[in-house]
Structures are given as C-alpha cells and as structure tokens.
C-alpha cells in the first residue's frame, strides 16, 4: 500500500474501528437492524437514514462499543424516537389485529425451491411473514435476543413475542410439509 501507511498523521485519527471491521459490523447488523428501524419509523427511506446516522456517529465520535448488539438496537430506537418527535409524526404502535394476513398469494414456492439451497428457501418463506412477525423472528434467531429483550425493544409483551415465534415456525413447518418433496 505504498507510502500512505507510513504517513505520520495516522495517529491523529485512530478510530476504534478500522474501516474493515466497521463495514463488517454494518454487514452483520444490517439485516435485522434495518427491519427494526422500518418497524419504528414506518418508512423504508427514513429508516435507512436513521440507521446510517447511528453508524456515522459511531464512526465519527469513535464510540467504543462493548455490547455491540444492545448498543446498536438501543441507538436506533433512540434515533427513531427523536426523528418521530421532530417530524411531529405520531408514534403509534399498530394493534395486533392490524397485522396483515400472511400474503400467501404472493408466495411462489417453486421459485424458492428452484434455489436448491434449503436455508435460502427457508428465508424466502420467512421474509413473507408479516412485518412484525418477521422482525421478531430475525431478532430471536439471527441476533439471539431473548423473548424478554425483544419485548422491550418492540414494546410488546413477552407472550406476544412467543406467539409470533411459534406462529412463524408453524408457518414454516406447514409450508415445508406441504412441499416436502421439493425440500428434500
């Protein structure tokens, strides 16, 4: 990498993360975190801005994170709440009944099964779950949050968290059983 690395100015800016680890952190956290942000601000573009603001501030302020996951989810929540307050939008959590039904008509399982990869096929199905159920699934299965932690993050009850997970897995099992042959 030539002479650049030996430049004396490097000491002036020694981020806690180098760019590689920073990007790595972003890549790892993005899938669930973006869904969480969308859940909070109810708008995909705004959610991305909120999420990116959090990461930019970590980089710029050289924040030393000890509990990466907890810190990031908390920060996104705070940033989303600030955003909602500023934009004078009403922060209203949807009632359980408003959760749309599983969009089965969009599901084209053959498309998923053509990709032989079972894991990919499963996530293709998971991504068809209603927004909130999908978020709970990601928080639990990918990020390893407990029922209780998820309940706090989403301001819902532990029982509701469990209910979402159970229904999510039931949905998967039903689909897989129905298309057992393609899944083998």
């Amino acid at each position, binding site marked *: 990498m030539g002479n650049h690395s030996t*430049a004396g100015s490097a000491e002036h800016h020694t981020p806690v993360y180098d760019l590689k680890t920073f990007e790595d952190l972003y890549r790892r956290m993005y899938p669930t975190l973006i869904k969480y942000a969308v859940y909070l601000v109810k708008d995909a573009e705004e959610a991305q801005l909120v999420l990116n603001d959090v990461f930019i501030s970590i980089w710029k302020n050289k924040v030393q994170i000890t509990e990466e996951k907890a810190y990031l989810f908390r920060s996104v929540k705070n940033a989303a709440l600030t955003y909602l307050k500023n934009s004078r939008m009403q922060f209203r959590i949807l009632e359980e009944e408003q959760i749309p039904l599983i969009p089965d008509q969009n599901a084209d399982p053959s498309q998923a099964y053509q990709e032989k990869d079972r894991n990919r096929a499963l996530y293709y199905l998971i991504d068809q779950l209603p927004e909130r159920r999908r978020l709970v699934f990601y928080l639990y299965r990918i990020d390893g949050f407990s029922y209780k932690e998820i309940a706090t993050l989403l301001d819902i009850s532990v029982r509701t968290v469990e209910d979402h997970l159970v229904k999510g897995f039931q949905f998967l099992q039903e689909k897989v059983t129905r298309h057992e042959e393609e899944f083998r």
Partner: protein
Amino acid sequence: MDQEIWKLILSHVSGENNEENEIRLKEWLVKDPVHQQQFEQACELWNDTAEIPEQAGWKDSFAQIKSEVIKPDSVKATEEKRLKVVFKRWIAAAAVLGGTILLGIFFQNRRPAVHAEAAEWITETSAAGQILKVLLPDSTEVWLNSGSRIRFPKNLQTSAIRNVQLTGEGFFKVKRDVRHPFIVKSLNLQTRVLGTSFNIKAWAKKQPEVTVMTGKVAVSRDSAGTQSAAIHLLPNQKAVYSRISGKLHKEDVEEAADANAWISGKLMFNQTPVQEVFEAIERRYQVRIQSEHDFKGCKLTASFKNIALAEVLQTLKITLDIHYAINKQTIYIKGGKCN
C-alpha cells in the same frame, strides 16, 4: 403441530433447560411415533434457520455512509487515502475468497465478548489454496485451513477468558494457562480448554466436529448465546454436532492425527462423502468443481500428500470412473459411479 408443542420445542432447542417443559415434551414424544418425526423436522427447521443467507441489501446502504465516513473532514488527506487503500484491498481480498466465507459469518458475532473492554478485534484469514499459521497474543498457535478465518481480541493475553471465533477449519495448540480458559466459538459449538491441542472443523452447513489430540476439551452447543451441558473429550475422541437431532455426541477416533493432516498440506479422506472431498479439493487448489453426478451416498478413502491437482484428478478418475475437463479455475466432471 399445535402452538403449545412448538412452545415446548422452542424452549428445548434454545437450551432453556426448563424441567417442566422438558417433561411435557418427552410425554408428547412417546405418545405417537409420528411425533418423533415432527420433532426432528422442527429441529431441522431450527438448525437451518440459524444463519441468514448472504444478502446484498446492506451494500447499497453502506455505500451511502462510505462517502461520509471516508470524507476528509478533520482527517488529513493521507489518512483518507490510507483508508481507501485499505478498503480496496479488502474488497479485492473478499473477491478472491469468493464464496468461501460467506455464510457462517453471522454466527461469529452473535454475542459480544465476555470481556467487555475488548473492543478491538483482529481477523486473520487464509485465502483459498493457502494454509496460514497464526500466533495469537497469548502464544497459542493456530493453523487455518484454506478459506478459514479466526477473530481474536487484541488484548487476548490479558483477558480473563481467552475468547476467539473460528470460521472454517483450524488446528489449535493452546498455550496452557489454567487461570484463563481458552474458548473457541465456531458455528454453533463452543470449545473450552485450558491448554491442549485439538482440531475444529466448522464449515458452513456441515456437521461441525472437534477432535482432540492431546489434553482435555469441553464442547458444548451454543444456541443464541446459551450453552448446553458440555461433553468432555480426551485424546482420540471427537465431538460431532448433528444438525438433524440438534445434539452433540461423542465418537472414538482411530487416528486423531489424521484430523489435522491438512496442516502439512495433505488431503486425507477416510470414508468421506465424495461431495466433501470435492469441497476440500476446491479449497486446497483454488478451483471450482462442477459435477453432473451428485455422488450422493458415495464415499471415498484416499490420501494425497502435497501433490499436483492433475494427479489428484487422475486418482479420482480411476476410483470414481469419471471424465473431467479443466477450463481455467473450473473443473467439469462427467459420469462417475459409486463403488
């Protein structure tokens, strides 16, 4: 399967160890042989959703802050260039590695390290076709098989618990330090030792295995950060995690040394599924193998000691009765039958 049963199963697979739930689950299981089948299917669903498939969505999003992050601002121009260079090199490295490190990565960091002050982690990666020896700060030696990587905190030596993360396959000679246990996390296994040598095989989507050469090792299942009860291994024993049952079990090994034969560049196969043989060759020789025949259920026993790819293929040609053609980095395999 009704919701109550799913609750019990989730409690079981997440390693909650809730006695009452376990009893109820057992009662349900013995009631009907179909239940056992349903239970296994549920466990498979659990296992196969542990990782998220590689997605590209984050890249566009990250591109938006990349400009912000690299922007000079208070940073001097040289630093900016340095970062860009680093970044480019990383992209290049990532491209070379191709798919080898894609999955399994999400597992690596499921839980932040126990020693909270250690924010700075170092990653060492061995590219395809390369075997890399890494000396960790605590004098532990690690050999990384092609396409594997290890992450460890910079302050490993002073950590109360020496935590490292492995993706792929690695052979460890752990520096003995009884007061500071050494823990390797790999896929969904946690291996805990004081000082010993052992081999961990944890390729994405494969059954992870831990084989012990010397000393004593404790292996447990790591599920979303929760540990199952550990099983203890002695030399010439290995722990295998079954993706189907979601359970760990112990097996005796005839020759534990075979498990790390790869560190000297040898490829050793002992009744190894042919698909795995292909994968090992792909990693070792930096090639892709495309085969017409899926060789399902076929096994192969062979050992190749640092020999050229052409010779390896020649041997496969004879033993598996195949024809092959090489085009750049891809090997096309036609025909073939099981013995």
